[in-house]
Every structure is written in C-alpha cells, then in structure tokens.
C-alpha cells in the first residue's frame, strides 16, 4: 500500500517550509501588534477604516497575520511592533508547565508548536522561555498521544484527537497507521489484492452525453 502522493511536512523550527500547506495555513494566524508609524491609505486593509483614503494612525492596535508580520518586521525601520499572543505569555506558560495534558491545544490555535517556533524570529526577551515551554509541552503530551494512537483500533477517534494541535494530529495518524497495518496483517488481509484507492473511483464516473 505505497502512497502516490507525499505531502510536504511543516518545517518545524525557525524557518518555515515554503511548499508545506500546513505552514501556509499556520502563517495565516494573527498576532496582536501595534503600528509604529502611520500607514498611509491602508486603513481598509487593516480593517480599521471605511474608505481607501484613510491611513492607520501611529500607535493603533492591529491584528496582523504572521506572514505579514514577518515581512514587515525590521529592527531598523520600525513599521510595526508585535506582542506575544496570550498563550505564549507568562500566565499560560505556567499552566503548561503544571500539566500540559489538560490543555485543549486545538482551541488555542491549531498550530501551537509551529506558530510558537515562528515567534522566536521576532527578538523578544522571553524567547528562551517560550522555546523551553514549547519543548516541554511536547514532551509531556507525547505519552498520551502514543498510547491513544497505538491502542485505538477500529473505533471513533474524534474524542481523542479533539484536543490535539495539528502537529500532534499528524503524529496520531502515523501511530494509527502503524497499528492498522499490523492488525490488517494479522488478520491476513495484507496478502489480499485490493484495488488501489487511486483507481477505485474510475468506474463510478458516468460519461455524460455531449450534445451537439
């Protein structure tokens, strides 16, 4: 059962993977920030004004997507400044260090690990603690993911994955696949020839008559 399509995985770390769909979706997440200089005629884009002639005044608060924040971020020409979203701040960091398993990471932004790694690109005095917290959270939640993915055979897993973020969900899928492959082999289905998923739909499409 080899795959025909290998999706490019997210580049986890301070650089994104250009071709990864997960990274593209992740960089759409918004950061709170402030405009350091007036942004002429951009009020509509930033959701602040009604007409295209208005400019964003200096110092106003904005929600900026990550890709835009990374592009505009420059310590020499201060166009915008960004703050940390609240889940990477001190208060939530202590929650994570107390018990990372109870947090609903999907609700907190489905790309906790990826987004957190990208935040380290902006110079911020709390960066080492953020990096440490992200790592510790992953390590703490690893056991739960491993156990649930390797033991849930043929059941509805939506309750198990509901609180995982996207990276953990991908890991969960891998664990499930290992389990399913083994069970399928043990039942003897591995030696049965089945139609490939790529061609199963061919017979279902009916040719429509072309008139004229």
């Amino acid at each position, binding site marked *: *059962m080899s795959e025909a399509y290998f999706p490019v995985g997210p*580049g*986890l*770390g*301070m*650089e994104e993977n250009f071709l990864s769909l997960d990274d593209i979706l992740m960089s759409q997440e918004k950061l709170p920030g402030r405009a350091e200089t007036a942004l002429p005629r951009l009020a509509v884009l930033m959701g602040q004004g009604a007409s295209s002639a208005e400019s964003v005044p200096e110092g106003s608060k904005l929600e900026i997507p990550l890709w835009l924040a990374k*592009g505009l*971020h*420059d310590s020499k*020409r201060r166009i915008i400044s960004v703050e940390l979203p609240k889940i990477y701040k001190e208060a939530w960091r202590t929650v994570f260090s107390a018990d990372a398993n109870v947090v609903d990471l999907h609700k907190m932004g489905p790309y906790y*690990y990826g987004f957190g*790694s990208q935040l*380290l*690109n902006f110079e911020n005095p709390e*960066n*080492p603690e953020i*990096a*440490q917290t*992200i*790592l510790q959270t*992953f*390590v*703490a939640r*690893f*056991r739960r*993911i*491993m*156990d649930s*993915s*390797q033991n849930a055979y043929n059941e509805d897993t939506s309750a198990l994955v509901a609180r995982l973020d996207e*990276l953990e969900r*991908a*890991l969960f899928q*891998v*664990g499930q*696949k*290992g*389990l399913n*492959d*083994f069970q*399928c*082999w*043990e039942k*003897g289905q*591995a*030696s049965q020839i089945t139609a490939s998923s790529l061609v199963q739909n061919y017979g279902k499409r009916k040719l429509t008559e072309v008139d004229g």
Partner: protein
Amino acid sequence: MEPAEVEFLAEKELVTIVPNFSLDRIHLIGGDLGPFNPGLPVEVPVWLAINLKQRQKCRLIPPEWMDVGKLEEIRDQERKEDTFTPMPSPYYMELTKLLLNYASDNIPRADEIRTLVKDTWDTRVAKLRLSADSFVRQQEAHAKLDNLTLMEIITTGTFLTQALDHMYKLRTNLQPGEGSHSQEF
C-alpha cells in the same frame, strides 16, 4: 517497512516437515533442498513448507519452542524482567501466525499457543512504549534495546522517529543560532 515485508523475510526460516512424496535433491539459487523421502523428516524453508502443506504433500512438525510449557516460561520471564528476554526465534510472531493458520492440525494445543504468544507480544510492546516514553521524557541522546524483533520495531518505529524529529527541531530552537534569513529591502 510493512508487516507483509517482514513476513516475507520470516519465510526464509527453516522448519521441519515430513513429506509424503519422494523427490531428489533440488538445486535452487539460495541453496539445495532435499532429497525428499516419504516419512523421513527434512528441513525446508517456511515458504516451501506452507506451499507443500497447502497441496497436502507434507506434515509440519512444530519448532521445539512452539510448545505450551516453553511459551509459558518465556511469557512469565518476560513479565518479570524489565528488559527484553531473548526470543527463541527472531520471527516468532510471523512464524506463529503462518504455522497456526496453515498447519494448526499438526500443532497440538494451537489455541493456547496463539494466546501465549499474543500475551508475550503485548508485554513486549508495552515495555517498548514505556522505554520510548522515558527516552522522550528525559530527552536522552542515545538508547539501546536488546532482543527486539523486527516486527515490534516497525509497529512503533515510524511514530517514534517522527516524534523524535519534531523534538529535535524544537530543541534547536533553544539555541538562537545565526543566519536568520530575513529579506532586506
């Protein structure tokens, strides 16, 4: 690697059969087999044994570790120890499945054997997960596990290597290195 591939490798193991036909020594690329004489036991690879059994040309003799007493000992030892006990065959899971599926009439107390092997497997896989978890939790750099069989490794292998990849990348975040590839205007 998939379970089917590991089963393919397992089929090279030798097992004893008692044929009911006669044939001279045959020369195959991997080695010689035979000669086959009715009623005399001979050692052949599992792939041939299964094939002959399906065509009703032989009777299989179970390997000497495939016995209820021996397997109970192995299972109890597995449960007592924290490390992995050496298994009688590096392909015990595959051999059990193949022999019990195709030749259960030649193997006494086949159901009990199946249960015992499954119990041993479950214990070993649980130990593997425990050690993987402590490996990740303490962020060790190196771990060594003896006496694991290939089938056990592939069931958790991909998951573990991917998780360790992620952990590695998250760890390199801790060292703010040089080379932030920003685009200067």
